[in-house]
């Protein structure tokens, strides 16, 4: 065994040797069975490391985290001292009215959900705390929603007419809310509240479409 080369095998494997060293080590590998075999085993170790899987904790840790963030929410969360006096602009008033529409239309959404979900619609004043944070939420969600809606069109015949009617009514309300939020954002693109509101409304639409498609698929 040549210890000098044996100790360089990982660097060779990772492509970290310069040309001269790599050539010399390859020449050594051609004559040293032990280094050649070890190199093969190291390759397997690297491959096995990439296949290791993540496993969740044995116990749910959320309750402890929730307790801590509730306890520390006032003192630990950064609070913007320089925030201007709170007042609603016209777009914000518009968004607030949309929120009320969405909340009042939540009945059908809730009725479609089997059991209790962790996704709890809540447009509460607490979100105002982070109003200085501008959401950078973008993405091809429209295309994704279009696909889900196409699937829903195919699935609608599996649902009873009352459900279809309620779902369509709620989708129309959500679409109106999305459209109005986008119009408001065109006037005030940096408005954190509106960005968050649009993100939340689109997420609700995705969740509703998914839920209805799941129900249709199971019926």
């Amino acid at each position, binding site marked *: 065994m040549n210890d000098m080369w044996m100790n360089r095998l990982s660097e060779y494997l990772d492509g970290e040797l310069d040309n001269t060293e790599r050539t010399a080590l390859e020449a050594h590998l051609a004559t040293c069975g032990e280094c050649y075999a070890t190199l093969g085993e190291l390759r397997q*170790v690297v491959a096995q*490391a990439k296949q290791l899987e*993540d496993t969740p*904790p044995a116990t749910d840790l959320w309750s402890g985290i929730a307790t801590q963030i509730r306890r520390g929410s006032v003192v630990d969360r950064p609070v913007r001292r320089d925030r201007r006096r709170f007042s609603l602009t016209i777009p914000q008033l518009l968004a607030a009215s949309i929120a009320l529409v969405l909340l009042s239309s939540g009945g059908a959404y809730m009725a479609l959900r089997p059991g209790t979900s962790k996704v709890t619609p809540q447009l509460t004043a607490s979100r105002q705390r982070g109003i200085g944070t501008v959401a950078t939420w973008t993405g091809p969600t429209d295309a*994704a929603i279009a696909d889900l809606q196409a699937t829903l069109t195919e699935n609608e015949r599996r649902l009873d007419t009352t459900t279809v009617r309620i779902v369509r009514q709620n989708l129309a309300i959500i679409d109106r809310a999305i459209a109005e939020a986008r119009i408001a954002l065109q006037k005030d693109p940096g408005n954190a509240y509106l960005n968050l509101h649009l993100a939340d409304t689109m997420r609700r639409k995705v969740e509703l479409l998914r839920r209805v498609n799941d129900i249709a698929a199971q019926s």
Partner: protein
Amino acid sequence: MPRQVLEDTLTADSIAADTALAASGDATAFERLYRTHVARVHTLVRRMLDADEADDVTQDVFIRAWQKLSTFRGESAFGTWLHRLAVNVVLARRKSVGVERGRFINDAEPLDDVSGKPITPELSLDFEEALARLPEGARQVFVLHDVEGYRHDEIARMLGVVPGTSKSQLHHARMALRRHLDR
């Protein structure tokens, strides 16, 4: 749009939306983020530290994430940001429990604990168990490099060592683990 691409898009957008909501103080959105990422964070912590510390440190990671969410600018994915935060919490923990640099550099000898060829299948360790029994320095470099994909210069900066030490520890770790490959 292919179904998998659609699912990935929706998942990424959903996480981005939840991140924005959580940053504004929505604990329900933050719980969804927790449930999406807890396995990855807990596994990283468990591999980098002792298993009996994993629950506490994982909770600490998420509490710090909640506190620091307002600094998340969206330049990277939330998962990447959280992962880096978890690494930093682990490394801070390592320092706070007195695992000083000298021990990190000089802990190659205990590799003998896991380097013997298993005599019988019953005595063999599985790969995760063998990884857990590596000396701390070698284990952390192996996890950061071979499992998590960090480069030696990044690892060296994080651990406060020179890149050569990181390379050396990685080689020691691999040499020990090759005897415990799942065949």
